[in-house]
């Protein structure tokens, strides 16, 4: 970005002058501007992380003082069948949702890139669902995917397909959530479309001269050229999928919903929320949080490693 080029020369140009006149005063003033973040970091990030690590070694129900129990919570965590279930549900959902999300977004972005003049209108249509509050998306899931009278199954019926009970059959709960999640691919489409438009057209022209067809061009030119943003949306969407909460909680959990809450929709963030704020097992919930943290870090690290082989950064070539 242009940003880096503006700072570098300024620093190189007149380092001595600046250091002698304004630098020391500048340095002091800088802290006033950064102070809000430093306070926020200490109070809302650093301390919570330390305290959460401590709490994970205790039994704490908010009412009485934390009682130190060593690694009991972590032992319990590995023996708790609900943790295994929640982890499995979350991973299955992520493995289904992320590729589907990326492929659909890429497909739509490729279409939009070819639509030239009318792209703006369609882009708006694709993005609008992203504005919908996730709680309303949970409601829509229950309504549109209703097994008996939902719109999805009615439409499937036109083609002679007897749709499943999306919201009550444990086997179909996650596919339903994946599908309603696809409704909000809009922001990914925008990111990928912007990336597609950054691909130099002469590369396509060269490929076309070489006789490459659309699919070949996409594979050999487009995908490598947008691999940076593509990797970015994969990572962001994976992290989001691993923390899926609102849509699933809205549709399948909550006070009036006990009859419909079912194990197939017990995602990790939901179990963590229940342990912390419904059962007030603050110590156990903290241990759960750290396990989630480790899982997310591990998956992101693997993705980073893979990206080193796969992602082509335009900057490298220049």
């Amino acid at each position, binding site marked *: 970005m242009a940003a880096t080029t503006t700072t570098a020369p300024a620093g190189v140009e007149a380092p001595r002058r*600046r250091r002698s006149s304004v630098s020391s005063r500048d340095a002091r003033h800088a802290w006033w501007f950064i102070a809000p*973040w430093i306070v926020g970091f200490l109070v809302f990030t650093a301390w919570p992380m330390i305290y959460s690590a401590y709490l994970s070694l205790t039994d704490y129900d908010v009412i009485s003082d934390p009682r130190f129990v060593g690694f009991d919570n972590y032992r319990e965590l590995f023996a708790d069948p609900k943790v295994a279930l929640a982890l499995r549900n979350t991973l299955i959902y992520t493995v289904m949702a992320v590729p589907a999300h990326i492929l659909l977004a890429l497909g739509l972005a490729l279409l939009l890139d070819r639509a030239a003049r009318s792209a703006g209108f369609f882009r708006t249509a694709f993005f609008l669902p992203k504005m919908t*509050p996730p709680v309303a998306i949970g409601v829509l899931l229950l309504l549109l995917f209703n097994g008996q009278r939902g719109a999805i199954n009615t439409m499937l019926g036109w083609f002679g397909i007897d749709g499943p009970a999306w919201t009550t059959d444990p086997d179909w709960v996650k596919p339903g959530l994946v599908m309603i999640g696809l409704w909000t691919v809009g922001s990914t489409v925008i990111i990928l479309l912007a990336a597609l438009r950054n691909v130099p057209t002469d590369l396509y022209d060269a490929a076309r001269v070489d006789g490459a067809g659309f699919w070949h061009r996409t594979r050999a030119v487009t995908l490598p050229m947008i691999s940076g943003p593509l990797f970015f949306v994969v990572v962001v969407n994976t992290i989001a999928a691993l923390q899926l909460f609102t849509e699933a909680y809205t549709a399948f959990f909550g006070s009036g919903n006990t009859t419909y809450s079912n194990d197939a929709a017990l995602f990790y963030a939901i179990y963590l929320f229940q342990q912390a704020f419904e059962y007030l097992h603050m110590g156990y919930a903290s241990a759960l949080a750290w396990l989630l943290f480790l899982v997310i870090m591990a998956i992101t690290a693997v993705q980073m490693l893979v990206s080193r082989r796969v992602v082509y950064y335009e900057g490298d070539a220049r």
Partner: protein
Amino acid sequence: MTSAAEATRMPQGVVTAAPQAVTVRKRRTPRRLAGRIAVLAALVVATFVFVYPFVWLLSASFKPRGEVFDNRLIPRTFTLQNYVEVWQVAPMATWLVNTVIVTTLAAVTVTFSSALVAWGFAYFRFPGRGPLFGLVLATMMLPGAVTMVPTYLIWKELGLVGGLTPLWGGNLFGSAFYIFLLRQFFLGLPRELFEAARLDGAGNWTIFARIAAPLCKPALILTLLFEIQAAWTDLMRPLIYLQDSSTFTVPRGLKAMLDQFGFGGEWHWEIVVTASVITTIPMIILFFLGQRHFVQGIATTGSKG
């Protein structure tokens, strides 16, 4: 619409609107025309799929109870009764007021504080700036779940659980993503401008408030818009911090209504549907007010990856 994407395309030597570029690319052969029609058809079908849930929801909100599930896009019996009832069966007006308060405070505070911090990182040179900014970026990767429990305990200690403060109070201290975003914009401003102002005797605050911030207005608006959306649609924090129905935000209220009137409750889906529309409409309006900002902002987010 001139988007950031189109603007960045120009340096590559292709002006999107230039006629000669178009004539080189598009020969009007029948095959090419068929391709264009296929693309357009696919886009129209996709648009139908993406808009359908909105139309379904909106039209269901005008149907009487028995017809909500008839899946007609134009109600057979048109009624405004649901929009009258929804205010009577739940304190919808209070929820809306609460949400407006939280959203306004959240967006204004986070924009102001993030801009301050971003400017601190963009303009000043001080020892430890690099590592400190690295720390800002690192917090962006931190899953909210890890700090959720202790953060709750902080607000509880302060006696603020049950009120609206925990929903926006954290925003007083800036937010890593916005700090990152705004810093990028600040770095794009020419430094000479500030050196000149300094020679004219402007202090650090004046340079920030009178020169840098006004020049960064698009980025500040973007931050406001993003945070308005985030605050308005949040369900998890209201679930954690609000107990009494009179303090609910609209999404928390909608969840309560779903529990009361949905499958687990009284099966008054027409109420739930109408409340969903009321929860969603402000966000749709927000999008159309700031469409350009949203689209450009999201496009730039990706290019930073």
